[in-house]
């Protein structure tokens, strides 16, 4: 039963592998970026999970509460989300320019076009 109780971690693994699989197998560059985002989202879930304490409340001081969840992972993940947004923005803008230069965003067609370049 312990394994089922840790279902958050199973979710993390499933998300991580899904994202990773898309990054590796999809020939479409936009889908690769989406896969990368799913992959990163799994890490966000991993961090948030480890900060959660069952019965703990949001870490805002109050007289009625004595158990608080750990706020540090949330702060770290806020940073990681911003990093993820920046990566996605750079990635998508590269895809836009690749599409303008090659007329396609399928990787196999780009590889074929690259071979013809000197």
């Amino acid at each position, binding site marked *: 039963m312990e394994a089922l109780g840790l279902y958050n971690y199973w979710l993390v693994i499933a998300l991580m592998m899904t994202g*990773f699989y898309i*990054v590796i197998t999809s020939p479409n*560059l936009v889908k*690769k970026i989406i896969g*990368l985002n799913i*992959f*990163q989202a799994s*890490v966000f879930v*991993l*961090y948030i999970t*480890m900060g959660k304490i069952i019965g703990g409340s949001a870490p805002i001081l109050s007289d009625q509460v004595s158990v608080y969840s750990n706020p*540090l*992972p949330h702060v*770290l993940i806020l*940073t*990681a989300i911003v*990093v993820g947004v*920046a*990566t996605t923005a*750079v*990635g998508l803008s*590269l*895809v836009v*320019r*690749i599409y303008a*230069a*090659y007329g396609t965003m399928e990787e196999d067609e*780009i590889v074929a076009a*690259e071979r013809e*370049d*000197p």
Partner: protein
Amino acid sequence: MIAAHLPVLQVVLPLMAAPACVLLRRPRLAWGFATLVSWACFGIAALLLGQVLENGDISYALGGWAAPWGIEYRVDTVNAFVLLIVSAISSVVLPGARASIEREVEGDRVDLLYTCWLLCLAGLLGIAITGDAFNVFVFLEISSISSYALIALSGERRALVASFRYLVMGTIGATFIVIAIGLIYMVTGTLNMADMGARLPAVWESRTVAAAFAFLTVGVGLKMALFPLHLWLPSAYASAPSPVTAFLAGTSTKVSVYLLLRFVFTIFGAGYAFGIQALEYVLMPLALLGILSASVVAIFQLDVKRLLAWSSIAQIGYMVLGISLASLTSLTASILHLFNHALIKTGLFMAMACVFYRIGSTRLEDMEGLGHRMPWTMAAFVAGGLSLIGVPSSVGFVSKWYLVLAVLERGWWPLAVFILFTSLLAVVYVWRVVEAAYLRPAPAGTGRSEAPLSILLPTWSLIIANFYFGLDTSLTVGVASRAAASLLGAGP
């Protein structure tokens, strides 16, 4: 007053200069500003190294929050040396960058290139100086994202694809590192590196730590282009603007090697990495395969920038080989090679910047007879090439000497023979360039046209440094052996 704040200024100066560069807009102004900032960073790094050698480690608590709760910047001999390497390479390359950047990058993007350059510099310095594990991830991404942009700023369309591949691989690598940091945080409850190092031995048996170690090794391996994870590097280096290649080749993979050293020796400890996890059985075969295969592939390249990029992968192999032996001499060799290879490769890529400036290509067939057309540039390339091979009196010789000593300490003489043999492979690929440049006739109707002095001077100062530090090894070997001793002493 300022002296006490040098550790944080080292990072904050380029980090604040980057947005200021956006406001400057005029390309020349941005370039001059970036160069000044880079020199200031070099000055700070030199002062920090001096302070560390004299008074020992420096700790700086950001915001006045003491470690292990707050973020701590911690400077010891190892990262003071890395800070010096990174800021020195940037300071030498930037003065020569203006002329070739103006030729290789579209006009309205030039000021943004210097912004990205400063951000990349801030990120690399930040990775080296910080004592906080999550901070490493943040700086890693600052430097990586700005280097994707730097590579894509080249006019060629190949650069876009290369940058995209680097982005995918780099993001996976960084995410692996952040998973590893999260798993360590899970079992130790701290993000401070020194604190992690003190708490980890109690939980060495935990499977979470083993998973963290695996994620970390693969993640850092991706970032430093360790042999089977190197595929992003050649096309990224070959298609980036030439000064950017010179800068990244000398700094970014080096900082990743430092990261491996830091995580393996300070956080996990040599006892865990080599005693329990047997890291040497993973690193050593990969290093040897990497040296051999990358050197062989380099021989068959038609583009000299790509050839040098493959040779970089082989050189990373030498550094990893030194780490995998994990003795005092071998770590000294690795840290020395960090410095020496940065000098060699940046010098060679700067020579390629000269070539690209004049003939607009670095392909071997276009370089025929170049020895007569650009005598100073090609002389610099030959001198740098000799250093890459490891001819006595050059820096390449010094680091290989220590590596061979370390191997012989273990009594593994076939490995020493292997190192000598792979140096011969370096002779072959350097010779192919020399053959094209000197032994083939120049195309008819081309006269002597040397690169402008502004690029040639930085190139030659790097080449002269190659031989100066090859003859006078007291500074480099002294610092490297102290750094190696502190790494081995830090682990339990």
